[in-house]
């Protein structure tokens, strides 16, 4: 049975959860990183090709040296990109940032260099026989959605939540401005946060239902407002504009 979240204990003893990234997020992050390193390797080869044609590079031996240098740099970029990027970004490679994920330890902390090296070394087994089949199967079968390298290194891939801070900021502002009861405030806030992800009919229905309960003027006048107007009305209830 797969676990949806990773429970960790904060330094103050309060428990909290981190959402675990599934195979889809992992693949998305890995493929983005793979494209970056492939591009990096190709750029080295392109530079080496152009340098071979440069007027300063004369003779077969010099051109050969330049080409060999280009190949070595391309190979180094291709093979060392992943561990180097993970170590330098502390588990948040550009690919993982794009996929909104990051690598953490089982305690939810930023992993150290040793753990990141170990999880990369075990790609040797995870990539077998082709296209990371072992890693993908392990990832699908383990409760925390981890590949073999993660099991050995004690790491987990979790989804990052860049929207949490701004959401807290907005909620703080709304709580100070509005006269709504706290439970109602939370409901309206939640609806506005999820506004763009909900279907048009569904969000209109939810907005009408909330406004009927919370806004006496709206309840008395009827329900002739469209989606945009309902959203404005909800924002007014919160005492200002909802910044998303």
């Amino acid at each position, binding site marked *: 049975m797969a676990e949806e979240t990773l429970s*960790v204990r904060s330094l103050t003893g309060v428990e909290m959860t981190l959402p675990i990234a599934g195979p889809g997020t992992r693949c998305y992050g890995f493929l983005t990183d793979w494209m970056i390193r492939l591009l990096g390797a190709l750029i080295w080869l392109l530079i080496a090709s152009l340098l071979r044609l440069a007027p300063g590079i004369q003779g077969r031996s010099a051109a050969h040296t330049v080409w060999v240098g280009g190949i070595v740099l391309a190979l180094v970029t291709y093979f060392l990109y992943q561990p180097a990027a993970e170590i330098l970004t502390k588990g948040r490679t550009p690919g993982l940032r794009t996929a909104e994920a990051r690598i953490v330890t089982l305690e939810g902390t930023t992993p150290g*260099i040793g753990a990141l090296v170990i999880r990369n070394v075990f790609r040797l087994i995870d990539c077998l026989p082709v296209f990371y089949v072992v890693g993908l199967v392990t990832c699908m079968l383990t409760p925390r959605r981890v590949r073999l390298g993660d099991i050995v290194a004690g790491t987990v891939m979790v989804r990052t939540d860049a929207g949490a801070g701004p959401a807290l900021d907005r909620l703080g502002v709304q709580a100070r401005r509005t006269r709504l009861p706290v*439970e109602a405030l939370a409901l309206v806030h939640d609806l506005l946060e999820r506004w763009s992800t909900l279907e048009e009919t569904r969000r209109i229905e939810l907005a009408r239902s909330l406004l009927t309960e919370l806004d006496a003027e709206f309840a008395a006048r009827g329900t002739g407002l469209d989606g945009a107007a309902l959203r404005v009305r909800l924002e007014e209830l919160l005492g200002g504009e909802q910044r998303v």
Partner: protein
Amino acid sequence: MAANSESDAAIWVREHASEWQALAADSAAAAQRSEATVEEALRTLRAYRILARHLATVRELMPGGVLTEILERTCAQLHTAVNRPPRLTRARWARLFRDDIPAAAASVRVLTLWLAALLVASAMAGWWLINTYPQLISLIASPKMIEGVEHGHLWTYQILSIAPPAMLSARIIENNVMVVLAAFCFGILFGLGAFYIVAFNGLSIGGLLAFTHRHGLGLELLKFTLAHGFVELSVICLAAAAGTALGESVIRPQCATRAESLRRRAAELAPLLLACALLLLGSGLIEGFISPHPAITLAARLAIGLGYWALMLLWLSGRLRIRATRARSARMKLPLLRR
């Protein structure tokens, strides 16, 4: 009771809402920062403590609510940002090379000796096999290599004539690092993967030595491998021993679970991988630049090979550390003596 609780929640939220804007800003800044001043670090820790406290309170007042969820999400993000391993300072690097690597090597010393014995035994078996059934050489050598040796040329010098030493070194290092990493990783299969890699390497070495000996090139091959072989083969045994130790941690767990035992052992042995990579870098450079050089004599090769090997043994056995510690304690005592 419910109404009272709701009013408590409302009062609490209105009292603390003004703090959240600053806490959210601190949380976002901490997640993006790679380094912080003391002031920034203290502010982040304060934000972390306050957010955790608020989360605990909100869970009591409004369990399962949106505010609980948002506070939990913010707090979890900050938790990862706050809990980072310390930066690798010069002292930490020094400790890694002086203490951690020798300690990791010492923990697999017996296994390394067993695997070295396996390497020697399989090399002898390979020698016997190819000496008795020469046609089996096609199992361990490519047709090009066989043809070259049959015509009186070692493949090692053919490689040199094609690739420049730097390129050759890079290829050798890459190949050796892959073998070592494979020996380490496949050790997780209850040690069988590491045994296979060591036995196969031993069989190949013995077989190739027998084959070249039959064609009068045995000494040439020995001469070629003398400068880099000691360290290269020792590192393979060391990595395989580390891999076997990983496998052992799964078979005979020392912790509550096998996964925990495996994680602990991997963390202990990780410094050894760094040592193996560095040693292979050295032996790869020797193999690329010194081993194929025809002008270097047998005695010089032997001296280089044994010297490098002795240096490796001194480092991994912790002897270098003891000397450094003695030198340091001597320096520390000096001012006291003067007084």
